[in-house]
């Protein structure tokens, strides 16, 4: 349910955010390999890491001059926080172990992110949110 709300918040600003990302040849989440290649045993860990990534490195650098967009980003971020709390419970109960693959995959995402300046990387990551949501729903 939280993912549904995130998706509806994201759909409301998707075109606006993606229009602010001029670099169409790069991807933060999908380069060089798509999230879909992650083993199911590693999924919880990747989702947990990616939620922390979006909370720590993405939303706060996506402030715009558009009040409506900022409000929707706040909605998404607060929904993320709500889900992150639930994920942390899994993490505490060791049901969210990180294998080598997910560690490597997440390292690559950080490399992609750090390859751009912070604002561009944050806007691009936000613009790719549907990639994460699609993958989460598919692996649900």
């Amino acid at each position, binding site marked *: *349910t*939280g993912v549904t*709300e995130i998706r509806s*918040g994201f759909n409301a600003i998707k075109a606006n955010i993606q229009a602010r990302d001029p670099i169409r040849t790069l991807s933060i989440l999908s380069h060089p390999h798509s999230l879909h290649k992650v083993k199911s045993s590693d999924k919880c860990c990747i989702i947990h890491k990616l939620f922390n990534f979006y*909370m*720590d490195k993405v*939303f*706060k650098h996506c402030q715009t001059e558009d*009040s*409506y967009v*900022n*409000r929707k980003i*706040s*909605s998404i*971020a*607060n*929904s*993320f*926080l*709500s889900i992150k709390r639930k994920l942390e419970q899994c993490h505490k109960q060791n049901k969210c172990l990180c294998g080598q693959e997910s560690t490597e995959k997440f390292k690559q995402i950080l490399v992609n992110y750090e390859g751009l300046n912070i604002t561009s990387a944050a806007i691009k990551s936000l613009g790719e949110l549907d990639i994460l949501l699609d993958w989460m729903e598919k692996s649900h």
Partner: protein
Amino acid sequence: EDALLPAPQNISILSTNMRHFLTWSPVTIQGETVRYSVEFQGEYEREYANESWIPICECSLITATMCNITEDISATVAYNLRVRADIGARRSEWGTLKGFFNRITTSLTPPLMKVIADGYHLLVDLEDMGPAFQFYVLYWKKGQESRMQQKMVKDVSSTVHLDTMEAGPDYCVKAQTYVETINRSSTFSQTQCVRAQGGRSMWL
């Protein structure tokens, strides 16, 4: 130096069926039109974004003493809310809601419901309360409460078919709402009972 206006008082939330309103007492200054502006702050803003506040533009410099904050209270986390008053260049301090608001505390009312006997068909029309709502409908043959049946309904845009009735006994129905995002239900509606409309056999 502009004299300070008093901050709005008695700030509170009215929240029913996942629709949330911030209300406050008017600031009254003789012969002046006072305008108000509202801002919100979610848990994300407190923990990750330097405790920043976000203005609600539909409630910027309004004369009403109520603001619909439903659109912005879109996660099950604790929100802070505040409102201030303006008259021209004169501006009050912020008045802040005492305590947080979390949508999990919204009050849920049972749905409006209309039970229909269409020949031998037991049908129900349910009130459309918005995308966040699902409904649990319970129905049974009067006197056989132990054999109560349940149907979960998500789409209420059309009449829901519950059962095919036998001629003779009354059939009773009651319903409650369920909101998945906060994992809570309303109380049940009043029970409504109907009987198959004889003479209009399915075979005619």
